[in-house]
């Protein structure tokens, strides 16, 4: 069986498992939007701050669910992979002609599939509640592509955690760490409006800020080449780093001859 077929079957299994755990896909579809609704309602007044880049906090904040949804997809899929290691299912797969790369690719294929559905959902909800995309339909498509790339990047780190630790608890415990990256960012305010120096600096060093800003620019600005270059560049870099490290971790985990 060729690599593509193996990736297909393992990816299909990954998707089936996610679908059979409703909490793993219902919650990521609803919770980020609920949080968005709360933050939008709570910080609507921030649009009155001089220099705030939009008169709609909803449009400003729409980037958030894409990032948080990607985090959920990552942690959930990472936990599934860790469970495979804990139960010995990985050994079962290792005893087949499956190529190691197919395991990782199949796992990430599942994460991407979920991420794609999530991205479409968030875009749809955004359009339905009246968010205007300054970059038009093409911009919405680019948001979709970037969102899927972000899911892939985060997913590779989730796989890394699963392969390095082989423990579902350890992967779960990543979630607070990802949360920190999400909150200490330009999620709630543009970086130039963050008053607290250390927070602004931390947000400027945080790659997640640029991912958020890339998506946000397509919603509230139009075509901002710098923001897009930074967003895509960081997503691609994270993907390469995550994939490399998780491939190495897989080699160590599957020490078959």
């Amino acid at each position, binding site marked *: 069986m060729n690599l593509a077929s193996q990736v297909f079957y393992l990816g299909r299994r990954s998707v089936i498992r996610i679908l059979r755990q409703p*909490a793993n896909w219902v*919650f990521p579809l609803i919770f980020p939007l*609920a*949080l968005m*609704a*709360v*933050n*939008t*309602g*709570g*910080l*609507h*007044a*921030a649009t*009155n*701050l001089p220099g705030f880049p939009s008169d709609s*906090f909803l449009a400003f904040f729409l980037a958030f669910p894409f990032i948080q949804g990607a985090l959920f997809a990552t942690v959930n899929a990472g936990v599934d992979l860790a469970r495979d290691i804990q139960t010995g299912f990985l050994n079962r797969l290792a005893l087949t002609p499956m190529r190691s790369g197919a395991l990782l690719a199949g796992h990430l294929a599942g994460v991407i599939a979920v991420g794609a559905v999530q991205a479409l959902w968030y875009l749809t909800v955004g359009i339905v509640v009246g968010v205007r995309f300054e970059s038009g339909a093409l911009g919405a498509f680019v948001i979709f592509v970037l969102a899927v790339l972000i899911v892939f990047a985060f997913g590779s780190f989730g796989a890394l955690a699963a392969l390095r630790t082989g423990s579902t*608890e350890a992967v779960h*415990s990543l979630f*607070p760490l990802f*949360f*920190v990256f999400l*909150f*200490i960012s330009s999620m*709630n*305010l543009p970086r130039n*409006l*963050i*008053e*607290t120096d*250390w*927070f602004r600096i931390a*947000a400027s060093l945080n790659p997640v800020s640029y991912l958020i800003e890339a998506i946000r620019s397509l919603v509230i600005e139009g075509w901002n080449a710098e923001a897009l270059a930074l967003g895509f560049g960081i997503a691609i870099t994270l993907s390469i780093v995550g994939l490399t490290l998780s491939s190495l971790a897989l080699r160590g985990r599957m020490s078959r001859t």
Partner: protein
Amino acid sequence: MRQLVSVTNAVAWRMLHNNFTTPSLLIPGLVFPLFFFTAFAGGLSRVNDVPGFRFPVGYTAFQFVFVLLQSAAFAGVFTGFGIVRDFESGFIRRLMLAAPDRRGILLGYTLGALGRWLVTATVLTTVAVVVGMQVGGNGVDLFALYALAVLVNFCGLLWSAGVAMRLRSLQAGPVMQLPVFLCLFFAPVFVPVSLLAGWLQVIAHLNPVTLLLESGRSMIAGDPTHVAAAFAAALALVAAFSVWAVRGLRKAEAAGG
């Protein structure tokens, strides 16, 4: 009475011992409130400049009250997770068999949640003072603020205990957490209620947490308002959730633990 006290103390001691000797239980409970305090007070301090925002002792104190109450509520919820673990492991059956007065089990959990939160509150307060939070209230005002937080802690625990004793499995987790989260966040978290967006303002007015939050903030500002109403609401919630929890205990007994 003596039996009730001895069971209460035994259960409380166990919860506190497990919490303070298990890093994976202790650290999130301490770190998350600090993290939220940092993210909200640090990242959103510019909200102080929003037209119409008037809080005499500054945004740090404004957010401190929210994080204090949030940490109190979630200390109760996290203790609820511990109750679920006891059901999953079967330990609750051991408690029910041994305890001459089973109400002591519930009281013990309540005391355990309080003990857990008191440590968090101490750390949080220390950090707030160190970063220079301004305090307008006097000793009585501050005592009232922390007393209100204690009642919120009881509410969090009693709600979670009732859920845990009814569901008796990991499924209880989201059911415990989500309503508490929504109650806390459908409130004036970032700005006073007068500055919330229309729909959220309506919900916030109906949400009892708003009363607790605004009263708490008035205490720290040194101009206490609606104190009696806030305590009445909190005590009413404690009473209601107590009934909920005790009935849950009876259901758990009937199911054999």
